[in-house]
């Protein structure tokens, strides 16, 4: 770890000015990912601005029936908040599927959005090639050990996946991220928050370097009664997803009124499967319709040497998550 200056701020505006015009300054929140990457010399900030004392830790109901999750609320507190458990059990489940209780006690919602890939070619500078860590150096994973890598939306420059569980549920729930920059506030929909790698995999998100996440806003949801977060991993607990599925259904008797499906562990961002959702909307909740939706969810998937198994795993996971969400499995 390289030396860094440490500074604590207690106002959002002070945090913004602290990072303005400084490429090597980073915000510090829970630190569970940043400090880890600093130990590996993957992240090398020369100044850390500790934002954990900003008043952004609240979870509160919005006038339209939605819920606002403070950027600095801890993952454990968010998962256990009655508003989240009762209105968005899908999100509570996804949060509780991630990391360990100790890490969830540290990690914040804003930090979870910004966590970086666990691709081993990225996290270990012992590997010379990684376009995300060292732009232009190549991708070690494309021809390397790519068992945990992307099957959707990848580019030849990068086949890393986004590691978050929380973000998969947020994508399914159509959350928006409220941010503050030097020019004021703006909102970014979850679909636009994370990027596909393309030719610039070093850029994970569409958040500007001088912007601070204030909150994650969830719209009112008709999905609380029928949702499920399914996570497939190498261990029963405390492991990243090989494939995960956030499935949510709005039912009208045996008929699906609307559906939400997002996949994790398969792409550079939470992968919203809108074609699959359309396949379900307005149809009877039958095995045939579920199977058709699942096929759409992995449409265009491409496997590499060690991860082709993920395509069928993802398809079957969508089937299973939908069936559990719909109460037929």
């Amino acid at each position, binding site marked *: *770890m*390289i*030396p*860094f*200056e*440490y500074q*604590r701020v207690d106002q959002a505006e002070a945090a913004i000015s602290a990072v303005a015009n*400084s*490429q*090597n300054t980073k915000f*510090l929140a829970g*630190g*569970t990912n940043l*400090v*880890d990457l600093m*130990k590996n*010399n993957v992240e*090398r900030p*020369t100044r*850390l601005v*500790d934002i*954990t004392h900003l008043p952004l830790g609240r979870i509160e109901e919005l006038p339209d029936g939605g819920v606002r999750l403070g950027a600095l609320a801890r993952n*454990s507190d968010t*998962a*256990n908040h*009655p508003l989240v*458990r*009762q209105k968005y*059990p899908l999100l*509570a*489940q996804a949060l*509780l*599927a991630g*990391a*360990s*209780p*100790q*890490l969830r*006690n*540290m990690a914040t919602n804003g930090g979870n959005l910004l966590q970086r890939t666990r691709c081993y070619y990225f996290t270990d500078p012992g590997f010379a090639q990684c376009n995300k*860590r*060292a732009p232009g150096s190549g991708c070690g994973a494309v021809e390397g050990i790519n068992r945990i890598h992307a099957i959707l939306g990848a580019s030849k420059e990068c086949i890393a996946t986004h590691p978050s569980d929380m973000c998969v549920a947020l994508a399914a729930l159509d959350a928006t991220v409220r941010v503050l920059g030097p020019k004021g506030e703006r909102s970014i929909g979850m679909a636009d928050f994370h990027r596909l790698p393309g030719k610039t995999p070093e850029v994970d998100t569409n958040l500007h370097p001088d912007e601070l996440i204030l909150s994650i806003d969830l719209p009112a949801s008709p999905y*609380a009664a029928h949702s499920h977060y399914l996570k497939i991993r190498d261990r*029963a*607990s*405390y492991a990243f997803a090989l494939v995960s599925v956030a499935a949510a259904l709005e039912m009208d008797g045996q008929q699906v009124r609307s559906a939400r499906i997002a996949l994790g562990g398969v792409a550079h961002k939470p992968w919203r499967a809108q074609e699959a959702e359309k396949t379900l909307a307005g149809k009877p909740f039958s095995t045939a319709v579920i199977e058709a939706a699942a096929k759409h969810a992995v449409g265009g998937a491409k496997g590499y040497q060690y991860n082709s198994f993920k395509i069928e795993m993802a398809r079957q996971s969508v089937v299973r998550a939908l069936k559990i969400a719909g109460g037929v499995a």
Partner: protein
Amino acid sequence: MRHTSKTNSENKLNAHCEGPLKTRCETSRAGQVDAASHPTKSREDMTRREFVVTAGVVGGGVALGLPHLAVAAGGWNSAVVEESAPAHIMNVQLRINGRMQSLSLDSRVTLLDALRENLKLTGSKKGCDHGQCGACTVLVNGRRINSCLALAVAHQGDEVVTVEGLARGEDLHPVQTAFIEHDGLQCGYCTPGQICSAVAMLDEAKNGAASFVTANLAKIGPAKLDDDEIRERMSGNICRCGAYPGILAAVRSVYKDGEKAEMRSGS
């Protein structure tokens, strides 16, 4: 906050280079300075002394208010330049096991290293040092965290309880007693983390925290702990000896004792 003199920080760096990091310091990083500052000199030609001096000169640029020099000079390979920058020493006050401690620490020091190296509280263990094993688990303001991923300077004024702070004089904490009674360990290295984790976990359950295996998340209230719940809630603590059956039995027994006590008190 103040900067240490360069002599101190260079000594610190040099000391690191003599240790297990020797290969990294002298080969890969010297090679990077070589490329950035001595385009005609091969890596083999550069002595360690030249490396330190070069790094010091470029580092001086940083100290003189040219913060972007390092980035402009070498992009990702500029780590060596930044590494020669002075350490930032800060004063931190922490309440550890009930006692206020005042420490002067490099901003890079983790809470775990502050406990072990500065305060000689070696109960908390450094297993993976990357938040993957739980051996470093301590309680901060009553919550369990991985102290290896916590920067000590970020915990100014916080209340820390380590495994050394659980007993009351000669009386062990009930979780400690249960680990002995149920053989919840073999080599013992993960045990302080397991015990701190279990102490916090039982509190979390009492306060209504859910887990990934909790069937009905909408139901708010104290959590009932069966074996699957205990396993899931303790999954942040890895035991390489595989003493899990004993750990599970120990935690289960403390939980059951708590249930019985609550029934007796009628609460």
